[in-house]
């Protein structure tokens, strides 16, 4: 009760300082928030590209329906495979005519359909990497009626590399941003506590216990962090909306990330306060 009252009183007595601390925390977390939005959207974009990763199995013309069914079922049984679509010779021709209208004449002049039927194998999320694609392709080798297997190996390799570089870069940058934000929060809290060192000394001199002195400061630190977290969230949201309207559409980050960010702000404020106040509890 005293703790809550005193923490709120602390904020009320020094609104400018509390506001400045919260603003510092907000700016620090704003940078982290922007980074999170960028990371999340890059991740989403990569995933959308990866969804197009597929293995196309070209089938010889003389295949029997039952044999084809067997291959299809075999593919569907693999954990790497999400779905299989059968494209008949006729469908292939229709597609070719719409995709390549400049050869319309050529297609019409032919009396036999030169295009093979195929199975388009769609891969499950998490298996859109070179090794999995290779595994699926290899599986078709035992079927004699399979003519050819295609899966843009080169761009799958590149996509995979991009994903790995992206993962490392976001890991390093994310850690760096979080550390910088942590240092800024710690500094903000230190300044707030330094401003009240006289009060802390007086409390000790009149016989308050360390726990009693510490508690309102911990609460105040946590509140400053949470307030800063909310401000940062608001700023990040506004920035995301602004970019979406003017430059290119961005997805908003998942709710768990926002809750995590605000909670991290509060936790940082709390821990930073605990550290900052320690020396003043030994001074007199």
């Amino acid at each position: 009760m005293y703790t809550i009252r005193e923490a709120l009183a602390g904020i009320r007595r020094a609104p400018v300082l509390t506001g400045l601390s919260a603003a510092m925390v907000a700016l620090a977390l704003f940078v982290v928030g922007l980074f999170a939005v960028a990371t999340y959207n890059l991740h989403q974009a990569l995933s959308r590209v990866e969804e197009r990763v597929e293995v196309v199995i070209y089938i010889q013309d003389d295949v029997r329906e039952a044999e084809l069914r067997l291959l299809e079922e075999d593919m569907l049984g693999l954990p790497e495979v999400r779905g299989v679509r059968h494209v008949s010779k006729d469908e292939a021709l229709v597609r070719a005519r719409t995709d390549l209208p400049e050869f319309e004449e050529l297609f019409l002049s032919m009396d036999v359909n030169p295009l093979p039927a195929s199975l388009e194998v769609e891969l499950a999320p998490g298996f859109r990497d070179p090794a999995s694609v290779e595994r699926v392709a290899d599986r078709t080798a035992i079927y004699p009626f399979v003519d050819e297997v295609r899966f843009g190996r080169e761009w799958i390799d590149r996509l995979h590399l991009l994903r790995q570089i992206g993962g490392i870069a976001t890991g390093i940058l994310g850690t760096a941003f979080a550390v910088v934000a942590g240092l800024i929060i710690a500094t903000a809290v230190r300044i707030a506590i330094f401003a009240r060192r006289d009060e802390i000394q007086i409390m000790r001199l009149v016989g308050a216990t360390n726990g009693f002195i510490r508690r309102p400061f911990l609460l105040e630190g946590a509140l400053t962090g949470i307030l800063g977290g909310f401000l940062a969230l608001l700023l990040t949201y506004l920035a995301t909306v602004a970019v979406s309207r003017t430059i290119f559409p961005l997805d908003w980050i998942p709710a768990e990330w926002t809750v995590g960010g605000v909670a991290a702000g509060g936790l940082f404020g709390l821990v930073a306060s605990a550290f900052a106040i320690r020396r003043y509890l030994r001074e007199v």
Partner: protein
Amino acid sequence: MIELSHVTKEYAGRGKALNRLSLRLDKGEFAFLTGHSGSGKSTTLRLIHMAESPSSGEVVVCGFSSGGLGSHEVWKLRRKVSHVFQDFRLLPGRTALENVAFALEVTGAPRHEVEPRSTRLLAQVGLAAKSSLPVHELSGGERQRVAIARAMSNEPLVLLADEPTGNLDERASRGIMELFRDLHAQGVTILMATHDLELVRAYPDLRHLELNQGELVFDSHAVVAGEA
């Protein structure tokens, strides 16, 4: 109640503020601690309040030893020994009442008792009319009284006062002394640092200790004992 044994206090590069000082104050005593400026009066009071620890020697107050009391436990001593600081150490932005209430609150007094007790303490030091004024609007003598009211708030066994009449006129000084005499009559042990020898002479019944360059050079009790 208070015992200093061969206490030396050295500040880095400043020499010895106290030099093998030994003195003993029994329960219920009232003593003046005099000496020139820089003789070590404030240092002695801070050591007794355990805001500092001796470079060597031992300070024992109310059963707590300077050697054994960690900084996380010093509150136990501070609830028995109050210090009226030379510079008051009040919270500038707050009223007289809030300053006294603060000490009660942070030492865990029941919430409903805080305000009536603070009001009563301020009335005791004659400040009832000014209790709702911020302390920075009070005169030196009035602030001194707020500091004394705060020091009395936790009903201490020992009261340390550092030049409490330092910048007060004759009448205000007498007022403070009356307050201390009342507390003493209630059984509080008092050690008061002062350089006002006239004041000391006005109370010949009280014990008089004199410091010079960190050493005890005069003790009225020892003289009496020596003569007897």
